[in-house]
């Protein structure tokens, strides 16, 4: 099938939103700055003009209450999309997200539901620092009643977003800011990508390399580096974090017998822990050799030299895989670094 229609990740989210807003009059978009000229990486750029201020509106700086607004509107059958420029700001919303949104359907034995989407951008870039780059997906994945997705490709961005809008549960939709400019094939028609399904992006026999969001980009680069020393990595993009598809990972591990999980977040109590635990549950007698990577267990520093140290990158991932498979090699292999154009290109401020 010819893959000719190229959209960026940001354009894909815009298109998904536009198509759903046209299809379903109960969908509305709100949040800080959704109607400003930047339109949050272009993802909301002209909804207020197209659909009017009732369907796309800016809000006061009251993140918890504005989350509650979405919950209340969702109780009445509307489909709010609450946009946050940073996942760090979701920390102000925890009361409404976890105590209210996640609870209504269960506590009411199914009478009420909260079909709401919460968008949040995560991720490194240009010295975002301690409070502007946190990736807190495991906090939300921990809570029953919430769904959490973090697509990597433009195709998945559009499909997962339409799925999120139509899902009758509160969905935390995570977008890494270094992905917004990435282009990929995106069909023009409306389509959904179901949650709870991981993607095998590249097949390989030697190691199962699982990653989320921007770490998928790094993992794919690491795969290229590993090829140069004859290691064939199977790269899996989790896409969906809650529900999470560890069956696909387990099936791959049955072939490769080696597992490396690269989390776009802190290792401690992170998604990587969940993947490895679940794979262990599925393979109690033949658990593979494994390793995991994530952010350094420190607050994210701002200065570039330390920021580089904080994050896994394709080289450190490739070295980790090599050490796992070739225990005797220690740190002796230094692969040629791969160009990370999306990191170099990003100069903020958002």
């Amino acid at each position, binding site marked *: 099938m010819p893959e000719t229609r190229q959209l960026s990740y940001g354009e894909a989210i815009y298109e998904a939103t536009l198509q759903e807003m046209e299809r379903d009059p109960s969908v509305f978009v709100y949040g800080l700055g959704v109607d400003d000229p930047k339109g949050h990486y272009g993802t909301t750029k002209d909804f207020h003009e197209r659909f009017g201020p009732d369907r796309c509106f800016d809000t006061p700086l009251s993140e918890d209450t504005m989350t509650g607004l979405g919950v*209340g*509107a969702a109780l009445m059958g509307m489909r709010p999309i609450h946009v946050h420029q940073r996942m760090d700001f979701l920390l102000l919303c925890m009361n409404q997200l976890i105590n209210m949104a996640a609870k*209504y359907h269960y506590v009411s034995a199914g009478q009420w539901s909260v079909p709401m989407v919460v968008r949040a951008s995560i991720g490194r870039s240009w010295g975002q620092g301690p409070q502007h780059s946190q990736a807190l997906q495991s906090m939300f994945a921990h809570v029953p009643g919430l769904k959490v997705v973090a697509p990597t490709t433009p195709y998945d961005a559009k499909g997962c977003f339409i799925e999120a809008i139509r899902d009758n549960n509160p969905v935390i939709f995570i977008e890494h800011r270094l992905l917004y400019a990435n282009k990929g094939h995106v069909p023009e028609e409306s389509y959904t990508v179901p949650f709870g399904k991981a993607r095998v992006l590249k097949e390989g026999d030697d190691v199962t390399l699982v990653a989320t969001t921007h770490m998928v980009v790094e993992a794919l680069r690491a795969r290229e580096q590993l090829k140069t020393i004859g290691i064939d990595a199977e790269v899996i993009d989790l896409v969906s974090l809650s529900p999470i598809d560890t069956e696909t990972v387990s099936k791959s591990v049955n072939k490769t017998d080696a597992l490396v999980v690269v989390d776009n977040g802190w290792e401690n109590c992170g998604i990587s822990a969940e993947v490895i635990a679940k794979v262990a549950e599925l393979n109690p007698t033949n658990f593979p050799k494994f390793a995991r990577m994530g952010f350094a267990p420190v607050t994210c520093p701002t200065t570039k030299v330390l920021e580089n140290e904080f994050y896994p990158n394709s080289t450190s991932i490739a070295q980790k895989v090599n050490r796992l498979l070739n225990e005797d090699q220690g740190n002796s292999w230094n692969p040629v670094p791969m160009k990370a154009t999306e990191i170099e290109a990003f100069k903020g401020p958002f």
Partner: protein
Amino acid sequence: MSPTSSNSGQYETLFEQMLTIRLVEEKVAVIYHTDAVKSPVHLSIGQEAPSVAVCAALEKNDMVIGTYRGHALYLAREGDLDAMVAELYGKSEGCGRGKAGSMHLGDKSIGMPHTSAIVATGMPNAIGVAFAQKFKKENAITACFIGDGAVDEGAVSESMNFAGLKKLPLLIIVENNQFAIHSPISTRMPRPNFVERAAAFNVAGASVMDNDLDSMLSTSQAAIDHVRSGQGPFLLEIATYRWKEHVGPGDDWALGYRTKEDASPWFENDPLKLCGERIAADRRLALESKVKEQITRAFDRAEKGTFPDPAEMWDNVYA
């Protein structure tokens, strides 16, 4: 539902509602030591009138948001009595099939989302509900009940700000019983003027401080008319008094943060008692008999009800 019959007819309806609430709560207090209700109860005894007065002026398609002290609102909104008691007993016949309990009563058929046990969290949801009503041009309003304690929370100020900004069809009822658990207003607020706070957000307001049912009825009606006419939100403060301890079936005079002397004017001017005195004695006796029978039946049904199957724990995590 607005009663359309004569004044005495209205008082009979209001008396019956307040009496139902009072006697149900008293029965919960009596049986609580048997551990039939295995969860905390925040009784509405003494606070029946605000819910009943406001609900008297609401229409069927209006929405109500309550709190964990929500038995009065649930019943004032004509929630099913059997389903309420069954819920307290943790039975599958309850309005949450036992998953909710006393703190989270609700029922979609009466426009009452299941209440929250976290102070002030209902208010942001109320502005969302009101927003949806306005958006969908439903010609309906949302009545959100909070306590004086909730007014300390930022979410209440944030909610009033947004409601005032967007002129949402929201009635906020502050049931001011002077305490957040055992903390008096004087230790929490330097300037406890709720109507003034509302005005800062372009929210109209009024206070009913005399614990009089007629005052509550007429002021509620005026507030609801204001909101329904599209003039924007309204904050109605109603002074009231919690007779029992914050949580549980007993009295707590021994704790010393309140005295029976403070409480005595509230007991003497009990709106339930005074309302009863305004209807004919034979009618009152008939209503008392009817209510007692309904309550006995509700508790009896709850006793005989069925606990949910353990497999039900897995239901309704996701829609």
